[in-house]
């Protein structure tokens, strides 16, 4: 129904291209796009910080160091080629997240308890 609207998607860089034959090599001169995730300090999750182009994973990690950690913003870097990121569809968000909408009892504040009850 909505085919007349052109939707460009972040994760679609790979999805739109034909799936490559196993072992096929790249021949275009442009380096592929990589998504960069950085752990800012021990104990914290890796967090998406942006993307960059690089010929391979090692170069992506080295470029990510230069682009995203010039001021000691990270102690660990993950990179993944953007074409391998699959994302949920925002057009389906209403139905997709619907199951959680009517379950307020999943939150602790749902329960009526007396004020005298301590340490809970």
């Amino acid at each position: 129904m909505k085919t007349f609207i052109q939707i460009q998607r972040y994760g679609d860089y790979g999805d739109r291209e034909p799936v490559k034959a196993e072992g096929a090599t790249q021949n275009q001169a442009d380096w592929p796009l990589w998504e960069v995730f950085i752990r800012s300090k021990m104990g914290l999750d890796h967090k998406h910080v942006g993307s960059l182009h690089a010929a391979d994973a090692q170069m992506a990690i080295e470029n990510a160091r230069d682009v995203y950690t010039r001021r000691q913003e990270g102690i660990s870097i993950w990179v993944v080629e953007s074409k391998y990121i699959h994302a949920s569809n925002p057009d389906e968000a209403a139905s997709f997240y619907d199951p959680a909408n009517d379950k307020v009892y999943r939150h602790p504040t749902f329960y009526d308890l007396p004020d005298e009850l301590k340490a809970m």
Partner: protein
Amino acid sequence: MEKQATINLEQQFQDRVDQDIRIEPKDWMPEKYRQTLIRQISQHAHSEIVGMLPEGNWITRAPSLRRKATLIAKVQDEAGHGLYLYSAAETLGISRAEMIDQLHTGKAKYSSIFNYPTLTWADIGAIGWLVDGAAIMNQVPLCRTSYGPYARAMVRICKEESFHQRQGFEILLTLSRGTEAQKAMCQDAINRWWWPSIMMFGPADDASPHTAQSMKWKIKRFTNDELRQKFVDICAEQVKILGMELPDPELKWNAERGHYDFGKINWEEFWQVISGNGPCNKERIAARVKAHEEGAWVREAAISFANKRAQKQRPAVA
């Protein structure tokens, strides 16, 4: 039917923008919004990249190791800022190669300020104070721009930008306390960079046809003239610390308005420089094209190497 559907989508989009909900790459957006963003973000990225050239001119001639190290770090930051912004633009469906091509063919513009030459060391100070100062004034509100990837890139850029301005002011401050020749050099740099810097905010509001739509979409948060006035007010005070003067005889505090009045901007010069007739337009683009062409073999070699390694790592098929 289809038209009605588009109108509804546009209404939903505007509602989200009005509620300050950020727009993300996968969300529906009006085609015009996408195009406006691609133009603005790529121009911004190009400005960062071309902006390395006038400053790079002084790296080998910086007066001390300290100045040299900070200038290298600053130029490196500009490269980083260009990359953050290119990535943000790519989420809108334009490729990096396409953007680079637009820059090299002159189809895309970049900030006209970088078409002025850096004649003396004091220019590096003036660029830091005035050019980066104006950039910060423009960029801080963009941290809240409606397009998520652009806003996130701007947050990172603004964090790094403040060292740029401070190092520039420090250079000028040192010169302003130096010999007569150094003081004169300082004033001369301010004289040359002041007007191009206040032109950086773009044409006056009544000559800026896209402003209203960009404000409605919350791509822009303030008009060109609002930001320019804010910048003039701040610089008019800061220049006193340098004991220098801004080259505008009409610059005067207006108690009634609560702002500084300032002289008329030479818009003819602005349009001339934008349309390619500034002092360094040709030199800047030629330098970018040369770097790109001479780097071609590196890009190709890296791809070949990656392919070869991928081949080797693939288990042999029996």
